[in-house]
């Protein structure tokens, strides 16, 4: 075993691992990443594939939350358009009407978003960045008032 052969072994091993990883990453990037859409993009049918897992984000419309046993219906808005959402599960602690929300799931044929997850936020002052950006785009962004510091 010479130095050169060892180096060759090292290189082959590295290429093999990196190659495998690259193949896995490329296939996963096609299937396993989740795109984010605003209600406007969904209503204007900009969503490419039906039945694919996507994220929908916006504000929970005031007065839209209806609890029906363990499942809950609400509407997500970006000021311009509204998408109805159905979710069976326990809502995160900080879910509230008028607040930003991100849901993940699939868009049904009837236009109702079947949420598999409503994302937990850790902090009530926090607006998901995607939501803030899409609100800015639709022109309904108001700078969140600063929380009163005593």
């Amino acid at each position, binding site marked *: *075993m*010479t*130095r050169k052969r*060892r180096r060759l*072994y*090292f290189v082959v*091993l*590295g290429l093999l*691992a*990196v190659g*495998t*990883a690259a193949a*896995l*990453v490329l*296939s*996963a*990037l096609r*299937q*396993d*990443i*989740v*795109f*984010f859409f605003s209600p406007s993009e969904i209503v204007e049918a900009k969503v490419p594939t039906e039945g694919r897992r996507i*994220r929908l984000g916006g504000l929970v419309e005031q007065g839209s939350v209806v*609890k029906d*046993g*363990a499942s809950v219906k609400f509407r997500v808005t970006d000021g311009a358009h509204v998408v109805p959402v159905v979710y*069976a*599960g*326990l*809502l995160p*602690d*900080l879910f509230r009407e008028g607040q930003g929300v991100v849901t*993940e799931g699939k868009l049904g044929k009837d236009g109702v978003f079947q949420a598999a997850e409503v994302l*937990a936020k*850790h*902090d*009530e002052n*926090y607006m*998901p*960045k*995607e939501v803030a*950006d899409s609100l800015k785009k639709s022109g309904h962004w108001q700078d969140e008032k600063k929380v009163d*510091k*005593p």
Partner: protein
Amino acid sequence: MIAEIGHFALILALAVALIQAVIPLVGASRGNATWMGLAGPASVAQMLLVGIAFAALTHAYMTSDFSVLNVAQNSHTDKPMLYKVTGVWGNHEGSLLLWITILALFGLAVTLFGANLPPGLKARALAVQAMITVGFLLFILLTSNPFERLDPPPMNGSGLNPLLQDPGLAFHPPFLYLGYVGFSMAFSFAIAALIEGKVDAAWARWVRPWTLAAWIFLTLGIALGSWWAYYELGWGGWWYWDPVENASFMPWLAGTALLHSAVVVEKRDSLKSWTILLAIVAFGLSLLGTFLVRSGVITSVHAFATDPARGVFILGLLIFAVGGSFTLYAVRAPSLKTGGLFAPVSREGALLLNNVLMATGAGTVLLGTLYPLFADALDLGKVSVGPPFFNSVFLPLMVPMVLAMAAGPLLSWKRGDLAGVLSRLSVAAVAALAVALATWLWQGGSAGPWWAAGGMALAVWLLGGTIVEWAERIRLFRAPLAESLERMGKLPRSSWGMTITHSGLALLIIGMTASSAWKLESVQTQKLGETITVAGYAFTLTQVEDINGANYLATQGTFKVTKDGQDFAILQPEKRVYRQPPRPTTEAAIVSTILGDVYAVIGDAVPEGGWVTRLYFNPLVPWMWAGCLVMVLGGLMSLSDRRHRIGAPTRARAAVQAAKA
């Protein structure tokens, strides 16, 4: 007054760090012993000054001194004392101060325990350590001063995020930081070695225990964070592939690889430049982790900083540290002498395979974590990269690694006999296949996920291989029992450490596989007296009452849980609303058994009567926590090995000299 002393101490510490970063380095290149010797006292002064600053901030928190802005924003008089103290690092400024305190502590450790280090290496390593300190002190003093005053002081503070008011999370940051910052030791020594152009077994002997210590802390820190997420977020999950989790996991992967490649440097004087590279990468990833979670690039419970200046500063620091060391590496690494040769099939080969897979794994996690940032910057759409991505990319890479893990320790150094090793492992293979078959039948074939049997088999293969290696070392059943016991007593602690840690990983894999594959969950509206059965456990909601906590109000549900008609446990989950800041949290109630966790969460009241409840059976989750603890225990065992102890080389040298005389 005390806050000003703290602030002043930090400024003095910066001055000391500047001196420590320059003079010893110049001294080492000129061979000036006095200049080199300055590093020692400087590191002691550093620790004292930073310690004073830390104590000053802690004092402000304990006495609720709201004239300090940081305290006013993050504390409250109603908070229990424990959370007043842990609140010190429950915010951006304080957590950075903790970072620097730990860094100073490690610097002090070099001085205290490094009496037998070559003076040049020690001086240079301490200088590099001081450069990191300078960076972070500048960061804290210029952008995040924890001692800023507030005038007039408010009557009371805004309180600490209730999610952080929890024993699991109170100690998660210090352990994580001990791990992150612990890798700075390997980093400083790697840079010092690059400057000197010399890496040898003595270098590795010094770096190994520190890397091991950092690894132990990081393992514990990650486990604590995961445990916290499991019981506090009330979702029954323990790992979300969240960017902040990945930020701590990447240094862990690189650190684990470093730990193994340092063995090769020490034992075989090989893989030197690779080890140096890993040391740089491990600390680089720690810095990146700090950047990701502290800069606000990624929003989460960790992102305290919203000031863009801070993000830019850390990014600059990161680029300087990582870019600078890579440049140094590119210039100096080719001059490092390559050491012992080995065949592809050998202990070194197996360790190298482990390294390559760990590094590739860390690379894919890095890619997945940063991809959304790139996609957003390049206008490829807004994406989130979550569990599906990591499960289908990272896990396949770990399968060959675990497969090789069982065989690696059985291979001999330099040139191994793979066929022989595999035949010695036939017991493990048979056990793994049997478990796979049993798992498949138990879950009803394709009724359960296909990978469950694979995961179980993998864990049993690893456990089996580890036990076979241990049994061979003590010649169990081959020699009389008394001889085996005697051999067991003489087994070096580092070898015990390997056996224990690898077994811990096997337990961890069992727990992760089972809880991911067979988790049972039931979400419903439950009225008083109603019974819901999950996995044979009957949950009856017997009572719901409002209770008054120290600084919160809570709705507490009482579930009477029976199994097969027998009383099993009373579970009392809570939904709390904290007074300051007014924020709700979920407190799950969990009873652990060896087979799994019985887990209950109570939600909001439903207008028609009843409450939304979420009931789980999470199989084998306690095995995961046990696995983490066993891994930590194995690390500690290895750390206590006489050969790893810091003074050991001196004694060995003295013994050699005595023998010569």
